[in-house]
C-alpha cells in the first residue's frame, strides 16, 4: 500500500514536471516579446533590452525552464525583483524561497499574492457545486437505474442527455434571461462584493452554482444510472431477490455499493471537469476566481501566472485521480490486499 502511494506520488511529480514544461513550450508560440509586454509599450528600449538580458531570453528553452524551476524551488533569485530593473517588484517573502512562482507581470504582484485568494474563491464555488452534484446524482441515478425502463428512468435519462447538451455559458444565458432579466429575482453577476446592486453574497452564488450543477450532474446521473442498471441485472441481485428480501433491501444492501464502484472514479474525476466548467462560469458571472485569472493571464502572456495556475490545477486534478484509485480499491474488496 505504502509503496503504491509512493509510486503514485512520484508519478504525480513527474506529471507536473512534464506538463509544466509543455506549458512553457507552448507559451513560446505567443507572439511578441515577453520583456516588452512586461514593461508596457511606453518603456524605453534600453530597459527592455536590460530585462531581456536579465531574463536570459535568448537562452534555449530547456535552459530557461530549468532556471524557472530554480526560482520555484528557491535555488536562484527571481530576476524580476532585481532593483536594477527599476520595476519596483518586491515580494515581502524575499526573492528566493521555496514555492516562489515569480512575479505576475499582469497584476504587477507576486504570483503568490494573486493566486491563492482567487483559488479560494474558486474552491468555494466548486465545493458548493460538488456538494450538490454528488448527492443529487446518486439519488436520481439509483432511482432511475433500479427499475430500468420505468417512466422515472426514462424521465431522468432524458434529463441527463439534455443537461449534458447545455454548456455552462448557454445555461448561464438561459438562467440569466429568466431569473435576472424577466423575474429580477437574482443578480446577473457575482463579483463577491455587496456594493452596487445590493445583492447578498449568498444570492450571488445561486446562478453560478446552478449552472455548474446542471451541466455536471447530467453526466454523473447517467453514469450512476447505467451502473445501477447493470448491477441490477447481475445474478447476485437475483440471488438476493430469491432469498425473499424486499426490493428495498435488495437495492439498498446489495445493489448500491456495487453500483457505486464504477461511478466513484468518475465522480472524483469530475472535479477535474468541474475546474473546466468553473473557468467558463466565472466568465459568465464575472466571478473573481481562478479560471478568469488564468484566462486573463493567458491572453496577456503572463507566463509566471500561467505556469502557477497550471501547476495548481494539475496538482488538484492528479491528486483526485490518486484518491479515486484508492477509493476504488476500498470499495472493491477484490483489489484490496489480503
Amino acid at each position, binding site marked *: *500500500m505504502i*509503496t*503504491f502511494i509512493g*509510486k503514485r506520488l512520484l508519478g504525480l511529480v513527474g506529471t507536473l514536471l512534464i506538463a509544466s514544461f509543455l506549458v512553457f513550450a507552448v507559451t513560446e508560440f505567443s507572439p511578441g516579446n515577453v520583456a516588452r509586454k512586461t514593461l508596457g509599450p511606453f518603456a524605453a528600449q534600453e530597459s527592455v533590452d536590460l530585462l531581456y538580458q536579465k531574463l536570459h531570453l535568448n537562452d534555449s528553452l530547456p535552459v530557461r525552464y530549468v532556471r524557472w524551476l530554480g526560482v520555484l524551488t528557491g535555488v536562484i533569485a527571481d530576476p524580476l525583483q532585481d532593483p536594477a530593473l527599476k520595476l519596483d517588484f518586491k515580494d515581502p517573502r524575499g526573492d528566493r524561497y521555496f514555492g516562489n512562482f515569480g512575479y505576475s507581470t499582469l497584476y504587477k504582484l507576486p504570483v503568490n499574492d494573486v493566486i491563492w485568494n482567487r483559488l479560494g474563491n474558486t474552491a468555494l464555488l466548486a465545493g458548493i457545486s460538488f456538494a450538490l452534484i454528488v448527492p443529487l446524482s446518486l439519488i436520481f441515478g439509483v432511482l432511475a437505474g433500479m427499475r430500468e*425502463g420505468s417512466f422515472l428512468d426514462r424521465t431522468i435519462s432524458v434529463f441527463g442527455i439534455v443537461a449534458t447538451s447545455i454548456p455552462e455559458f448557454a445555461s448561464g444565458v438561459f438562467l440569466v434571461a429568466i431569473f435576472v432579466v424577466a423575474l429580477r429575482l437574482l443578480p446577473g453577476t457575482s463579483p463577491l462584493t455587496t456594493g452596487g446592486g445590493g445583492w447578498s453574497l449568498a444570492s450571488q452564488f445561486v446562478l453560478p452554482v446552478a449552472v455548474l450543477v446542471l451541466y455536471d450532474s447530467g453526466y454523473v446521473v447517467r453514469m450512476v444510472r447505467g451502473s445501477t442498471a447493470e448491477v441490477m441485472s*447481475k*445474478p*447476485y441481485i*437475483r*440471488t*438476493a*431477490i*430469491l*432469498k*425473499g*428480501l*424486499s426490493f428495498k*433491501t435488495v437495492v439498498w*444492501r*446489495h445493489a448500491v*455499493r*456495487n453500483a457505486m*464502484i464504477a461511478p466513484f472514479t468518475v465522480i472524483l474525476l469530475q472535479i477535474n471537469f468541474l475546474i473546466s466548467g468553473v473557468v467558463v462560469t466565472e466568465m459568465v458571472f464575472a466571478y473573481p476566481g481562478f479560471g478568469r485569472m488564468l484566462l486573463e493571464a493567458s491572453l496577456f502572456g503572463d507566463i509566471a501566472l500561467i505556469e502557477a495556475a497550471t501547476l495548481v490545477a494539475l496538482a488538484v486534478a492528479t491528486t483526485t485521480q490518486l484518491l479515486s484509485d484508492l477509493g476504488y*480499491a476500498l*470499495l*472493491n*474488496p*477484490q*483489489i484490496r*490486499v*489480503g
Partner: protein
Amino acid sequence: MTAPLIRVENLKVEYRSSSGSVTAIPDLSFEVAPGESLGIVGESGCGKSTLLMAIMGHLGPSGAATGRVLFDGKDIAKASPAELRAVRSGGIAMVYQDPNAALNPTLKIGRQLVEVPMLRPGVPLADAKRLAEGMLANVHLPDAASVMERFPHQLSGGQKQRVVIAMALLANPRLLLLDEPTTGLDVTVEAAVLDLVDELRQTYGTSLIYITHNVGVVAQVCDRVGVMYLGDLVEEAPVEALFAQPRHPYTRRLMACVPRLDGDKHTTSFMPIPGQPSSLRDRPPGCPFSPRCVGFTPGLCNHTVPVEDIGPNHRVRCFRHRESPLFEPAAQEIVAPAEPSAELVLEAKGLSKIYRLGGSFFGAQRRAELSANEDLNFAAKKSEIVAIVGESGSGKSTFARILAGLQDATSGKLVVLGSDLANTTASERTSEQLSAVQMVFQNPDATLNPSHSAGFPIARALKKFKVTRGGKETQSRVAELFEMVRLAPSLMRVRPARLSGGQKQRVAIARAFAAAPDILVADEPVSALDVSVQAAIVNLLLQIQKTKGTTIVFISHDLALVRHLADQVIVMYLGKVMESGPVSSLFAPPFHPYTEALLSAVPVPDPTAEQRHVRLSGETPSPINVPKGCRFASRCPRKVGTICDEVPPPERKGEAGHMILCHIPLDELAAIAPILQHKPSERAPA
C-alpha cells in the same frame, strides 16, 4: 403416492420483446412428492432455467407465466409479493449455476448468510450468526468462522458453491431448486458437491428439482427424471427405467450421444441427432422433435401429442414410441476410426514452460514462478489421437499453445516433422511449419471474429498458405471445406452471430483444415457444446481424420470422452504428467492415484453401475511455487508418507509404454480394485 409437495399444472411461459413474443414453455405439468428428487435434463435453451424461474415467480419484466404452481396446495403463481417473499424465504430455495456470480462480491460471506434466517420473525443477529456458522460446517467448509469473515473472491469455486448451498439451506426449505450447480466446476469438485447434495437430502429430507444437461449427474442424484425438449417434457420416468428403457426418440438419441467410460471408438459410435433444435420462433406444430425425428409421420406427428402413461410413473409424449426398431442406429452412422501408422510426427522431450509473474496491485506479491508445464515427454504417430486430460490449471492449454506457436517454451524440445519448434512462435515459423500445426479453440463464441463472415477466415487461410489462387478457386475450395464439416455452403456469407455454437466449431474445424495440417491441436473443442452437438463434432473429427490421416492432440477434461476417442492418453496435474499410456491401459488398474480419483469422480450415466468412491479433499492448489516432492501430495488419498512431500516420485514403466509417476510400486497399484463394476447385461438398450 402422498400429496405432492409441488404440482405444476399447465404452465405456459412467454417472453415478450420488441420483436414479438415467444413461447419458451407451451404447456407443462409435473409434480414432486415430499422428499423426492426430480431431475430435469435437456440441452441448452430448452427452457430448464425458465421453468425454475417460473416456479420462483421471478421471470423478469419480459416474462409472463400462466397456469398453476401449487406449492403445498397454494397457488404461488398468483401469490402477492409478500406471500411470494415468504415462500422464497422459507419454502423454496435455490442454488445457482455459477457460484462466482451468485454471491455479492462486495459483501462478506457472513453478512450474506445471516440475512436469510433473519427474515424469519424473532431471529436476532446473534442467533442468525450461529445458524450460519453451523450450516457452513454442515456443508463441510473447514473453519466456518473464518469463512464468515471472507469475501467471495477469497474462496475457490467449489467452496463458493458450498456457501450458496448453505445459504439455500438456511431458509429451511422444503423444496430445493438446483440449476446446474456443478457445471463449470472441476470433476473432482463436482463429485464432492454431488456427494454433499446427496448427504443433505438424507439429513434434511428436502425435495429437489435438479436441473442439468449432464445425463450422468441425473443418474447419480435423482429418483425420477424428466427429459425436456423445446419447453416440453417429452418423457418422464424413474431413473432406472429411463436409463434401462428410454422410450422417446429424443431420449434414445440423447443417451446414445453420451460418452461412457466403458466404450471406445472401436466398439461404439455416437449417434448424433441430425439437425439442431428449432428456434422458439418457429416451433413446429405438434411434436417439437418432429423436424429431427426419423419416425416423423406427416399427418400424425404434427398434431398435439398426448401424454401417455406406459409404466409406473413412466410417461412419454410420442405417437410411435412403441416401434423400437425404427429408432435403432443405421449402419452408415457408425464411424470406422483411423489406425495410427508407425511414422512419428510429433515428439516432446523435456518440454517445460515457466511463467514469471510480476508483483500484483499494491506490490503485495513479489515475483513468483508458475511452472505451467514441466518436463513433458511423449511422442505421437501419424493418424494417432493423443488426448491430454486434467483439471483446470493443469497446463493443458499451455501445451496446446506452445505446440501451435502461440507461445514459446522455456526449455526442452518439441520436434514437429523433424524440426524443433519449441522456441519458434507462429510469427517465426515458416509457412510450411505453420500449416503443419493448426488449432481448434475451446470457446465457440470467441473463435470467429464477429465482424467477418464465416467463410472469410477460411478464404484468408487458403490465400495465406497459397493453397488456392484467385477468387473463384478460393470460393469453391471454401465451399468444399464447408461441405466437409457438413455445413451448407450458403452459410459462408453469414456472420457468426447467426450461427449456433456447434456450427461455429465446425467453421473453426474447416478453418484449421484449410491449411491441410499434419497435426491438429484441439483445445477442449467440444466442452462448451451440448452433448448431442459434441457427439456430432467428435464423429466429424474422426471421419476427417480417417480421410486425411491427421494426428490430433485432443485436450479435454472429460475422461469418458477421452476414453471414447483417444489412442493414447496423458494425464496432467499441476503442469506435470502423472500417468500416460495407451488408452486401454489407463482405464484399468494399475492407476495413478490421481487418475483413480478422476475416474471415480466421473458422473456415470448408469444408475445401476457400482462406482467406487474416491474423493479428493480440497481443490487443485496454486501452481505457484509447487512442492518439491510429488505435486499431488497435498490431495493424494494414497500418500505413503513424507517421502511424497520431499522426494520427486520415480517414473514407473508398465507395459506398452504405460508410465505412472508415483512412489507406490506398480504391482501394488495393480492390485487396486477397478473403479467401475460392469453389469453389461442390465445396460442393454431395449
